[in-house]
């Protein structure tokens, strides 16, 4: 995964903290914000793709079998996917403290 942004000395910042590599928002580890993690129950999942559509952070990708898989680097744990899943296949579980 790409290097996390923003953790640098003030001396290394671009002028006015401008971003000079376009599209680097994908490097921002929004997964750090997560308190609860969405976990999919494949027994219930109908592969409808609603979670993919509603996720505000483009966390889901379709795997070879047609299931939608979360990327926890970005998943911020908002719970929208769990709320929107028409068959309640997604459960939000508390993150372990490590």
């Amino acid at each position, binding site marked *: 995964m790409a290097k996390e942004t*923003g953790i640098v*000395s*003030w*001396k290394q*910042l671009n*002028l*006015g*903290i*401008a971003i000079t590599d*376009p599209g680097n928002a994908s490097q921002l580890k929004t997964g750090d914000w997560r308190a609860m993690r969405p976990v999919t129950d494949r027994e219930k999942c109908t592969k409808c793709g609603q979670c993919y559509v509603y996720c505000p952070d483009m966390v889901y990708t379709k795997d070879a079998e047609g299931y939608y898989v979360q990327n926890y680097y970005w998943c911020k744990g908002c719970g929208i996917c769990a709320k929107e899943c028409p068959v309640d296949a997604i459960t939000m579980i508390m993150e372990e403290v490590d």
Partner: protein
Amino acid sequence: MSKRVGVEVSIACADAVGLCDVDVVAAYPITPQTHIVEHLSELVAEGHLDAEFVPVESEHSAMSACIGSAAAGARTFTSTSSQGYALMSEICYIASSLRLPMVMAVANRAISAPISIWNDHADLMFARDVGWIQLIGEYGQEVVDLIPIAFRIGEDKRVLLPVQVNLDGFTLSHVIEPIIMPEKAEIQKFLPPYKPQLRLDPENPVTMGPVGMPEVYTEARKAQDEALNNSKAVIQEVFDEFGKQFGRQYKLVETYKTEDAETIIFSMGSISQTAMSAVDHMRSQGKKVGVVRLRVFRPFPAKELFDAIKGAKNLVILDRVTAFNGGEISAPVALEIKSVLFDRKHHPKVGNFLVGLGGRDVTVQNFEEMVEKVAAAKDGELGPYQFINVRE
């Protein structure tokens, strides 16, 4: 050879902006700054100045347009006053944080209410913290000279910050003075074309002004703070370059008859001219009085200021703004000077006087009164500040 011509200071200020080859002027008129903006729009309309004049609908929009223009790499100018500055201020912070050089002439005016179009330093004072460099002109020639100086300082790679040129509303902006207007070729020699370090360019996309998460905000502020701190040396360097080329030398701190002075009057702006007349008068009566003025208020030149005032027993510090701080501490200029003195364990007698508010005249007699008050006061008698010229 340039010759002296009688011209209104606002008009001369606008002409000086024209000489600097500005690309964009975005401004909204407000008394007493109006003549500067009007004249610039005339220069553009009549084809004397090849620039975009953006007649915006408010000062907030003026500064927004200026930020866009500076971000695109254009040399940018605007001007405002008082309430207009207040409306603009939200965006002014962003210009400095994005490190966008531009120049703004501020015709200093009181802030409402009551509505006052007349001069004091309320706008100069609230603009202390917007992260801009603040230069102060005392008379017409200085305003004209400070315009190219301001562009050169702001555009210097070691600085890259917006710069205000303050001139007192009416008492300076509307007077007609004999002014030497520099030749265009001379200004072009002094002020090379602006080469932005970073600019909006579709070929090389950048994001300016992104969100600063808690992980980066402190570092961003530290970097900006350093830039303003380091600008002090560049400002004096540019003053020296200007002095060499044009023969008019400016300093961060200007002094008048201070060498043997027991009492020093501290002032900023056009009122300093009256202060110097008062000093001449008091000197003729054998009183050892001098004047110290700041040419640059941000960055605050503490070391130079201390060197200028350390010999005096008494300090008369003028503030041209009401402080609204509860009355148990001094007004802003005196507060800052007291901090300079405290850090150097130096304790002269300090009188802080609120004068010249909302266009009230300050006379030679007023200066003599302030000097006498401080000289005669016993320890602790002067209080944090006092109003001068207020009817009881």
